[in-house]
């Protein structure tokens, strides 16, 4: 590992929210050197995002010290350090009305760089990332993985000294993740300092040279990556080993969702002639690259668009709801993939988001007091290990906590059909395990669970059956005993196809 000497040191950082009620950082610190890949690990809500935002100058710590190359950064704000420290946030967003091309020019150093020169640079960097950016597409039409890719290209255009990535691979396919990681290794070798936040401990441990572990806002360890085993890391982080969910064989019952010859073409993506059926008591996963049909299917299932042809039926042949309002009335539990937009009202208190599905049960003659909502919410919060007050704003939740809240809310009131889109996004190891356990017990109680996920690892852990979507069509199907990481990955990329696991 070439060490060119420079570094960012953050020491004893404190950051409080809500007038000191929430301690996000309570003496955290990190030491990021040039030329290294540094992993930042921690439970949901442990303060990872807050810490990296402080380092990137997006948030100002309440106290503590940040040194760049040994010099105290007097006013460490974003506009000062943006040329040196690039930052890819946990939920990256492009500018909806600007094309990717326009976006990439936004942040460039105005001095020098003619258009051609800039275009050449953009091309070279995206080639290194092995990704084709849709340069002429407007920001609101760019799929999630390409948003992250665009942000990374943008960041690298400035040739920063340090690169910080907050859970960058959540929206990536395995191949994209692989490409990203090898690029990061090259960059580190060239002398860039890289800080990566992730819940995928296995991956990070392989990639990173050194690790910092965070618990409850404190840095509890900073070590060479190979000095700690996976088990040790998980034990240090949350006192459990990295176990897999305990799988029991499924015993499928009657059909609860039947999709026949479904086709839909829209500007972003399309599906063609999709048919499958889901039985009670089983977990069926549909997997693939999101814009290869997964997102289109999700939009049809949450009734925000209508299919062009084909039909969807539920148990007993009743048609699937065609209006969003009717989904919940039809007894379907659903976790959407865009949690911020469809999953919660971020501007309202946590309890208003938690109690929404049981609001009718909690109320009497149309009267619904706050106490009832609050006590219901307290239960949900403790059950799912969410550290938040029922009355605090939902927007203050960390990424993983928000996901737990949404999952918990939906699973608690689920019975028949359950549709889960990317359920493990942003969850830490422990949270994932807990959620899988709950999904399995839901299945064992006779619910039919449809899993839409682009992350194969997730799918492999709990699905009973797996269908692969490629280019809008179902190209392969696998039963649990046929699961094979490599073959499934190839099917997702359209390299091969097998059987039909219908």
């Amino acid at each position: 590992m070439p060490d060119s000497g420079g570094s960012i040191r953050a020491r004893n950082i404190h950051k409080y929210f809500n007038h000191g009620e929430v301690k996000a950082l309570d003496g955290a610190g990190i030491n990021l050197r040039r030329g290294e890949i540094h992993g930042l690990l921690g439970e949901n809500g442990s303060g990872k995002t807050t810490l990296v935002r402080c380092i990137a100058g997006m948030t100002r710590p309440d106290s503590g010290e940040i040194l760049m190359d040994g010099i105290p950064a007097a006013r460490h704000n974003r506009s000062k350090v943006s040329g040196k420290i690039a930052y890819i946030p946990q939920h990256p967003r492009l500018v909806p009305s600007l094309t990717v091309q326009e976006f990439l020019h936004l942040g460039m150093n105005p001095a020098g760089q003619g258009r051609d020169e800039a275009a050449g640079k953009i091309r070279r960097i995206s080639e290194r990332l092995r990704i084709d950016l849709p340069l002429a597409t407007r920001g609101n039409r760019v799929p999630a993985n390409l948003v992250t890719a665009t942000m990374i290209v943008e960041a690298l255009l400035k040739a920063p000294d340090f690169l910080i990535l907050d859970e960058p691979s959540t929206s990536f396919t395995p191949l994209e993740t692989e490409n990203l990681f090898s690029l990061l290794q090259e960059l580190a070798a060239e002398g860039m300092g890289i800080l990566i936040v992730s819940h995928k401990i296995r991956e990070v441990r392989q990639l990173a040279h050194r690790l910092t572990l965070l618990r409850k806002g404190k840095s509890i360890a900073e070590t060479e990556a190979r000095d700690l085993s996976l088990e040790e890391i998980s034990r240090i982080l949350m006192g459990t080993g990295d176990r897999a969910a305990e799988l029991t064989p499924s015993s499928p019952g009657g059909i609860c969702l039947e999709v026949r010859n479904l086709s839909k073409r829209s500007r972003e993506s399309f599906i063609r002639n999709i048919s499958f059926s889901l039985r009670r008591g089983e977990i069926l996963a549909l997997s693939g690259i999101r814009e290869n049909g997964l997102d289109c299917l999700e939009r049809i299932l949450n009734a925000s668009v209508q299919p062009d042809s084909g039909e969807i039926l539920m148990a007993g042949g009743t048609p699937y709801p065609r209006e969003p309002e009717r989904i919940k009335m039809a007894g379907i539990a659903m976790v959407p993939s865009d949690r911020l937009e469809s999953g919660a009202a971020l501007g309202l208190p946590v309890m208003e988001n938690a109690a929404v599905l049981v609001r009718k049960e909690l109320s009497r003659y149309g009267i619904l007091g706050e106490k009832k909502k609050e006590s219901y919410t307290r239960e949900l919060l403790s059950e799912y290990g969410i550290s938040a007050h029922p009355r605090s704003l939902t927007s203050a939740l960390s990424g993983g906590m928000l996901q737990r809240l949404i999952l918990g809310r939906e699973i608690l009131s689920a019975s028949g059909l359950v549709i889960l889109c990317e359920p493990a996004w942003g969850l830490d190891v422990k949270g994932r395990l807990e959620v899988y356990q709950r999904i399995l017990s839901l299945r064992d109680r006779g619910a039919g669970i449809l899993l839409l996920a682009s992350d194969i690892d997730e799918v492999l852990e709990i699905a009973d059956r797996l269908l692969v979507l490629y280019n809008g069509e179902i190209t392969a199907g696998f039963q649990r005993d046929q699961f094979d990481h490599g073959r499934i990955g190839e099917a997702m990329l359209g390299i091969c196809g097998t059987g039909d696991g219908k």
Partner: protein
Amino acid sequence: MLNSVLSIAAPLILAAVAGYLPFRAGILNIGLEGLMALGAFFGFIAAAASGFWLMGVLAGSLAGAMAAAFFAWTVLRLEANIFLSGLGLNLAAAGFLGIASQMAFGTKGVLRPAILNTSRTFPPDHGIIPVLAAGFAFTALMLIMSKTRWGHRVIAAGEAPETLENLGHPVKMVRLQTLVLSGIGCGAAGALLALDIGAYVPNMTGGRGWIALVALYIAGKSPLGLLATVLLFSAANATATVLQGMTGIPDSLLLASPFFITFLGLVAAGALRTLAESRQRRKERDLTADEVRG
């Protein structure tokens, strides 16, 4: 008729262009009206004192810019509510102008060149100047928003402030710039209004700032839509003026017509858009059907 449409539209276009920038950057500047009033007052005084209309425009713009910077300070620094603070800007402008006029000229009423001991009048064909200014401002807006990096930054400040901040451009700075520019534009609009009349009349902006705001909202993000809305409103106004001369229609009833016509235009535009969307949807469906068959 075209002449009157253009002369009604010119100050409105200037004000609307001025409002467009902060609007796009995520700050609705409710204070356009007050900024225009300040521009009218200072623009008139400077022009009458110097005898050059251009001085008036400069002074009006400067006054607008300073007031807008104050507004920016309240919303960006003190984090006051944008709507209330904008309302406050309008009230403060009205109050300030009354007091200033009283202190400097001994009256809160109409100011004519004579009050500054000059009998200078402004060039007789001055009516063309606001039109040229509006045309220039609009063209500049189109170019800036579509071609320049700064224009794109304005859009980013409105649509994805976090992201812009992350790229190293302080959002507040961009917003401040757009607000100051809006002050300059409104100040110039007010000054031209006063120079066109050759006098300063308290309240002479007569709600034009509010109308510009409505036009902004109707047009949304599209500068061309903004131009169309302002022209539609001005044409409705000019028509009402002409119709007042003909018997039969109650005069004060015609005053409702610009709003009414704009309202109808809005309904028509909405209906057309809805229709077009459903047709588009049908077309897409046909496409897939063909493909499925084929």
